[in-house]
């Protein structure tokens, strides 16, 4: 089982999500964001970076996070990313499609682009990753896009080419929605994602 550290912002949704026992069982340590700079990450296999972190604190730790990946670590990054800190980051902000499911013949616009991947063959369905999107990424060549929009933007992808490590990057923000008691699919996502992160094939 991989050793997972979660960056913890101290905001209300993160307090709820990462203290939920069924997820906490997979978390070896919650690293309070203001303490990240002074925390030794060498004991961990995975660094889980939730959505909505403070810009100044996040960017101040950018080099440390990239160094963790260059040492072979696994980094997960969630949610919209309006500032540059991911390797080869190409983020396209889009209007959030809150209301797609109210339309006749509703189509979330999401497509499973690699259904054979372990995450989606053994842990999650596309429905578990479907609520709304805040934008898309346009990943570097060689990245493995697992979920995309109909126009090819990446909603969840794995990048093993930009550094020596593995980046699991998604526009989705289940850490926020589960912890704010909204959007039931986000609970199903985390129910599958944490076990995969701990034990699945990356």
């Amino acid at each position: 089982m991989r050793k997972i550290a979660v960056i913890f912002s101290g905001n209300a949704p993160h307090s709820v999500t990462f203290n939920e026992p069924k997820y906490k069982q997979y978390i070896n340590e919650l690293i309070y964001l203001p303490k990240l700079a002074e925390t030794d990450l060498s004991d961990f296999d995975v660094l889980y970076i939730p959505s909505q972190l403070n810009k100044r604190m996040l960017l101040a730790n950018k080099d440390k996070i990239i160094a963790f990946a260059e040492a072979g670590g696994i980094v997960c990054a969630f949610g919209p990313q309006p500032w540059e800190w991911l390797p080869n980051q190409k983020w396209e902000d889009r209007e959030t499609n809150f209301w797609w499911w109210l339309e006749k013949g509703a189509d979330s616009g999401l497509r499973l682009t690699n259904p054979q991947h372990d995450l989606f063959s053994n842990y999650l369905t596309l429905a578990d990753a479907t609520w709304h999107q805040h934008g898309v990424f346009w990943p570097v060549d060689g990245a493995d896009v697992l979920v995309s929009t109909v126009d090819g933007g990446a909603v969840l992808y794995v990048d093993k080419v930009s550094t020596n490590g593995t980046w699991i990057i998604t526009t989705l923000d289940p850490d926020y929605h589960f912890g704010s008691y909204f959007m039931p699919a986000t609970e199903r996502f985390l129910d599958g994602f944490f076990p995969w992160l701990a034990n699945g094939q990356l």
Partner: protein
Amino acid sequence: MKDLLFIDPGHAFGVDNWHDPFMQQHFHFIDMYELEHTDLTPFKAIIVHDFVDQIHLKAHQHIIENYLNAGNIIVWSGHLTESWLPGCAPFTPKTIVQFSDYNISFVQPHPVFDGVTTDDMTLNKGVAGFFARGAHLPIPPHAESLLTLPDGFVTTYIDRHSTRGTIFVHAGRDLFAQRNQNKTTDRIHTQLLQWIYDEHAAIGGRHDA
């Protein structure tokens, strides 16, 4: 010098506030980690956003208490998970069985919600649940209840007794974000702004009496 302070979580969803004319016209923004380095004496009110680091506020709760006891106002919108705000109980989510469990009701008329309909608070494009999904229970003794969910879940109240200042609590997203949606809830942000100024003047009278 602006006389209202906005504690900015510096989060991705907050980027729009950095460029919004209303927010920039009325509020002095500081990064939330600058609170303990900021002279609060020029400010009549501090607006605390739902994405704020509550561990940090808890570590500096004496600043909050001193600020309130100097006769000032805190407006808190969010779910309290750390005990940094005087009199405010931890957030309790409401058990949702049916959509009507999200229905917002008025307890009494109040200028912040003048002309705002309960339907517009309860529903966003026909979908319930955006406005509030729980409450801080129990509310402080003698607090003024403004809005509730069913079963006595007071989502929004004013507390003039826990300190010598005034605490406005809303168990939901930032009330100043209630704008530009083309419904009656668009009235909330300007009415809350006016209430802050009226209330701050009244606090002075309260203590002079």
